[in-house]
């Protein structure tokens, strides 16, 4: 179920030209600012909008090209929108079963399958409720179940977490990770939040003004941003580990003191500008002090993005001036510090 698409679309002021390939089981995040054309791209992949030029092929079957345009309802896909958009006139269970009923599955079997999916997304027993009775997070989980119930070849997620409040976003993102890992088809996730991309995607496409400005794994583009924009957008270090109260023991060794309570599997997240570099071990307050070796330095604008290897691998942004004053160069041994309060924790 490989997705192979080359999408060119001109619509009003939007001029979009993006190529993408997503393998089975892979999650591709399309990251970019609002208005970049990301949602439009998704609607083209879904068949809700026609291409101007190009093609969309899924597992060898042509969904779009110069001669064909398969309408959305004939494509084996599932789509989750920013707002859950559960049908208000149906129960939650009927919503989830909808994709089966349209494909001719009998009511009883559809209901059973839907109930199974509701249990998988943690909404067991809520099948008879009306969508208005669900919370935002519950509704989004139901929308995910509804999209997956038809065993789609392609899963499209359009800013699925943006409409949720901060707390709910954390829990739903963690669950989404799990489900995406279990999903066998190709997934394209559109978001403007780099944390989503970092946490959920295998590969990232950064899109600006309708064009791809960088493509790669999350760590690749964080470490070696090709443009200012990409650098400003990504660069968050996500360190997997286990929470132990006020610190996190990283999977790769090393301990990070954090500002918030952390328990269980988590990510410790450090923004590049929160990392300070010293040539000698600093004294004083920071509880987080680690030795590191500078393995890469990419200048952009007035900052230099530094790639640090060590027990606690980090990405640090330092001003060009500071970089010069410190006499840094790849290979240099440095000390990195981060204030505990500036380390965020995400459930993992």
């Amino acid at each position, binding site marked *: 179920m490989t997705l192979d698409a080359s999408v060119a679309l001109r619509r009003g002021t939007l001029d979009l030209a993006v190529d993408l390939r997503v393998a089975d089981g892979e999650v591709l995040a399309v990251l970019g600012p609002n208005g970049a054309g990301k949602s439009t791209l998704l609607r083209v992949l*879904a068949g809700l909008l026609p291409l101007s030029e190009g093609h969309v092929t899924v597992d060898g079957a042509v969904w779009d090209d110069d001669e064909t345009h398969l309408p959305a*309802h*004939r494509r084996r896909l*599932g789509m989750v929108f920013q707002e859950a*958009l559960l*049908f208000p*006139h149906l129960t939650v269970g009927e919503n989830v079963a909808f994709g089966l009923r*349209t494909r001719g599955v009998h009511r009883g079997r559809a209901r059973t399958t839907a109930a199974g999916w509701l249990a998988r997304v943690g909404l067991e027993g809520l099948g008879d409720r009306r969508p208005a009775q669900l919370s935002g997070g519950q509704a989004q989980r139901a929308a995910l179940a509804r*999209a997956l119930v*038809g065993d789609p070849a392609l899963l499209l997620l359009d800013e699925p977490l943006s409409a949720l409040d901060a707390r709910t976003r954390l829990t739903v993102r963690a669950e989404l990770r799990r489900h995406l890992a279990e999903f066998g088809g190709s997934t394209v996730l559109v978001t403007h939040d780099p944390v989503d991309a970092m946490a959920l995607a295998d590969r990232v496409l950064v899109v600006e003004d309708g064009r791809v400005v960088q493509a790669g794994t999350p760590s690749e583009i964080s470490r070696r941003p090709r443009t200012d924009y990409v650098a400003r957008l990504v660069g968050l270090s996500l360190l997997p580990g286990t929470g132990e109260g006020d610190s996190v023991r990283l999977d790769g060794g090393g301990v990070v003191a954090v500002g918030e309570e952390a328990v269980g599997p988590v990510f410790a997240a450090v923004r590049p500008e929160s990392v300070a570099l010293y040539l000698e071990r600093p004294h004083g307050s920071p509880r987080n002090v680690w030795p590191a070796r500078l393995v890469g330095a990419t200048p952009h604008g007035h900052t230099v993005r530094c790639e640090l290897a060590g027990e606690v691998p980090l990405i640090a942004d330092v001003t060009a001036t500071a970089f010069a004053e410190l006499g840094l160069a790849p290979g240099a041994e440095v000390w990195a510090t981060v204030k505990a309060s500036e380390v965020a924790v995400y459930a993992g």
Partner: protein
Amino acid sequence: MTRARGRTPAPLLVPAALAVAFLVLPLAALLIRAPWTRLGTLLAEPAVGEALRLSLVSASAATGISLVLGVPLAWVLARSRARGRTVLRALVTVPLVLPPVVGGVALFLVLGRQGIVGSWLYDSFGVTIPFTTPAVIIAETFVAMPFLVVSVEGALRAADTRFEDVSATLGASRWTTFRRVTLPLVAPGVAAGAVLCWARALGEFGATITFAGNFPGTTQTMPLAVYLALQRDAEAAIALSLVLLAVSLATLLLLRDRWLGRAVP
């Protein structure tokens, strides 16, 4: 002075009260001046039952036809991108402003024995339409369908089209989406339009008496019966009016609760 939330502002209170009085007093007068002692005998006449049955049947049939034809028309007006929709909408709502008698004459010119379509029907099949019960239904449909079309078009315009996108991604063809998503979402608007349509059809007089004529049992609906009774026996007219009022009120109250109360927020 404390003011409870939701109280009507004073400048609105007086006009609103006047409006209520204006609308309700005539109905109250009907009740007050009703010939209660003679009511039984007056209403027992067979012509009354016939007129009532005819009115109810024809209004319901007219509403049925309006639903079958009017909902698709409303969809075209609201959703399709065909050119000339504005003109089409104006034409379709002409019966709303046309005097009903004029509508009756126009129907003659189309469906009468000498009419554009009617003459063909008469010559080929020997079928005449004026002065029959179908003519009553046609006349009522002509004046009442625009109410339904306007109401449903409004509901379709206001509906959230994103649900239809969702439906498509879940494998529903456009027809299935219409049946299982769009229609249920605009059902309150359709119901409201149908109620308006039915009420208008029930009360129709001018087009009916012109095109369908007046004959007890076949084409003499309640409004016609009331009009003619007024010239003979005012109390009979009041009695018939009460019946019509009671039936209309009952239907409107019944429907209002069940259908219109469940509007999508």
